[in-house]
């Protein structure tokens, strides 16, 4: 009995391995923050075109969830996915170059901000139609189960996507077929300018899991340690029991929906933004580490310096990289050799 109780309690002082992990998470969250700030600047300077949806404020969601995965697992997201791409291990260079539309970008300059892909890292894309990626995420889980691997599929979407048909159709099937999937509702409070309260008949969105025979879990998205704990549980269910989870992570974006949207003043107040910034995910983890004696001002400064060097390098790389070849307009529409697979089999 006593043993069980001890096991479930968090150690008063985190062990060295935990602290090491926290240090990596902290660096990654700072990297995402600074990357996005610089991406915002580059957008204002006209170096990044189209739409650009920044992840500032939501860093703990990407880091806390993706860090729980193995390399062979799958990650898919919507169009606010720069942070998730970085958290999955894509280089700052390849992501920034894609935002710049350069040939060296992760999608060869054909995807842009909303369509970051990395086949090697099983980063299955940013997708631009709200909720459209949810069935695809279930498709990876279906394939894993079909092949009998123990891969897990992680699908991100915003809370507004929980109102679209694709969400309900997919979760019903995932629950029915027991797919090894984790569906993460990244609830930042607003779908563009419409609050959860104005868009959803029930605002505890994780409760929708009950309709689909899967656990529904809610977690504080500003605390990366809590996010990771909840994700560990969900991944275990998926990997060991082939059972899906709906995980609602409550977070907040400090910036507007996209670059054309002011941070506050129309659909939300400055006070509200300030209130969330007081519980900044980077601050929350940094404080936790300071309490454990694992971080001081000098160490924090070193992380900042290291990260800024990486982001500056990414900007330089993106800036200096070549444009895609004009002929690339016409490539990648169809497979290079139609029916090549059939031919190779037949031979």
């Amino acid at each position, binding site marked *: 009995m006593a043993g069980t109780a001890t096991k479930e309690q968090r150690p008063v002082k985190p062990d060295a391995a935990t602290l090491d992990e926290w240090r990596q998470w902290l660096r990654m969250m700072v990297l995402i923050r600074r990357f996005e700030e610089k991406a915002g600047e580059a957008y204002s300077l006209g170096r990044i075109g189209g739409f650009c949806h920044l992840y500032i404020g939501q860093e703990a969601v990407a880091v806390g969830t993706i860090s729980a995965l193995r390399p062979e697992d*799958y990650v898919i997201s919507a169009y606010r996915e720069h942070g998730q791409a970085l958290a999955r291990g894509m280089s700052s260079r390849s992501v920034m170059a894609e935002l710049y539309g350069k040939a060296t970008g992760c999608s060869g300059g054909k995807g842009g901000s909303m369509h970051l892909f990395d086949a090697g890292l099983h980063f299955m*894309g940013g*997708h631009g139609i709200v909720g459209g990626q949810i069935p695809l995420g279930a*498709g990876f889980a279906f394939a894993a189960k079909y092949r009998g691997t123990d891969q897990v599929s992680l699908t991100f979407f915003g809370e507004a996507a929980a109102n679209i048909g694709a969400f309900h159709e997919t979760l019903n099937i995932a629950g029915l077929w027991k797919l090894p999937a984790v569906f993460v509702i990244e609830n930042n409070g607003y779908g563009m300018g419409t609050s959860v309260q104005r868009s959803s008949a029930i605002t505890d969105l994780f409760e929708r899991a009950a309709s689909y025979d899967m656990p529904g879990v809610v977690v504080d998205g500003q605390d990366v340690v809590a996010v990771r704990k909840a994700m560990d549980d969900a991944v275990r269910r998926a990997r060991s029991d082939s059972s899906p989870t709906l995980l609602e992570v409550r977070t907040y974006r400090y910036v507007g929906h996209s670059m054309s949207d002011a941070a506050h003043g129309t659909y939300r107040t400055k006070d509200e933004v300030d209130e969330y910034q007081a519980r900044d995910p980077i601050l929350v983890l940094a404080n936790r580490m300071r309490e454990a004696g694992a971080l001081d001002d000098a160490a924090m400064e070193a992380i900042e310096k290291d990260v800024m060097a990486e982001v500056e390098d990414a900007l330089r790389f993106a800036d200096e990289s070549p444009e895609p070849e004009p002929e690339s307009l016409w490539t990648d529409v169809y497979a290079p050799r139609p029916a090549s697979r059939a031919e190779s089999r037949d031979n």
Partner: protein
Amino acid sequence: MPTLTYRDALNQALREELQRDDNVFLMGEEVAEYNGAYKVSRGLLEEFGPRRIVDTPIAELGFAGIGVGSAMVGLRPVIEMMTWNFALLAIDQIVNAAAKIRYMSGGQFGCPIVFRGPGGAALQLGSQHSQAFESWYAHVPGLKVIAPATPADAKGLLKSAIRDDNPVIFMEGEMLYNTKGEVPEGEHVVPIGKADIKREGSDLTLICHSKTVSVALKAADQLGKEDIAAEVLDLRTIRPLDTDAILGSVAKTHRCVIVEEGWPYAGVGAQVAYTIQHEAFDELDAPIERVTGADVPMPYNRALEKAAKADPAKVVQAAKRALYLES
């Protein structure tokens, strides 16, 4: 050579491809225990089991997207749409995901998937169950669109579609399932993108596909009685279009009528006519004629429905216009 129905030819193609490659699976509404709404998948559950023959809830968008996701990671799904009318609910996954994944990802991901099911009008099913969507999908770069007319082509083209590394829209004729024809056994593969001359002639070309092939053949019979030799060119694949075959036939006959079940506006025939006038302007001895479904939602009433469909009489009339025999 055995004679099979169009339905059984499709069934044979599915069975052979399922046997050949474990990555191939069939998913859709009523495909397994019910044996398919149109019985195309009859017996497949028994032979391959529920892992490979997968019944879904009525959730076209959901299972289409699950198919696309599984194809991105190397499976080769065949997604049955009970009819193409219902695929409108899934068109986001077909157009925004399947067709674009390769391009958006800079070539990192492919999507070897087949969406198949019946299209076109049947009999008195009304507006929402009687329409031809070939031109909708043919409009989209990244997709291939196939619409076979005969049992042999149905088998050979479905096998090609399943082996193709691209998303393929495979439109079966709802009125063709019971039609019969000789079908080669075993490895019979018809290449995608190749039209077929179903009847040779020298006076004009009737360009058609799917159900309108039989309409054109009947019209050609009638024209033959008046000593007019019509060539019947079955497109078989709508995208990529077999431009060489079309131009070759028109260079021989110098006149043509394009026949399709779909609506005229921005239809398949509009693209074919553009191609002919642009590539073979000097070969034409008369304006290109079109026979299409009437430009209205399909009515229920039997007589009105008949009036809305392309039929041999309309094709004969159009042919005579192209021959300057009638105005």
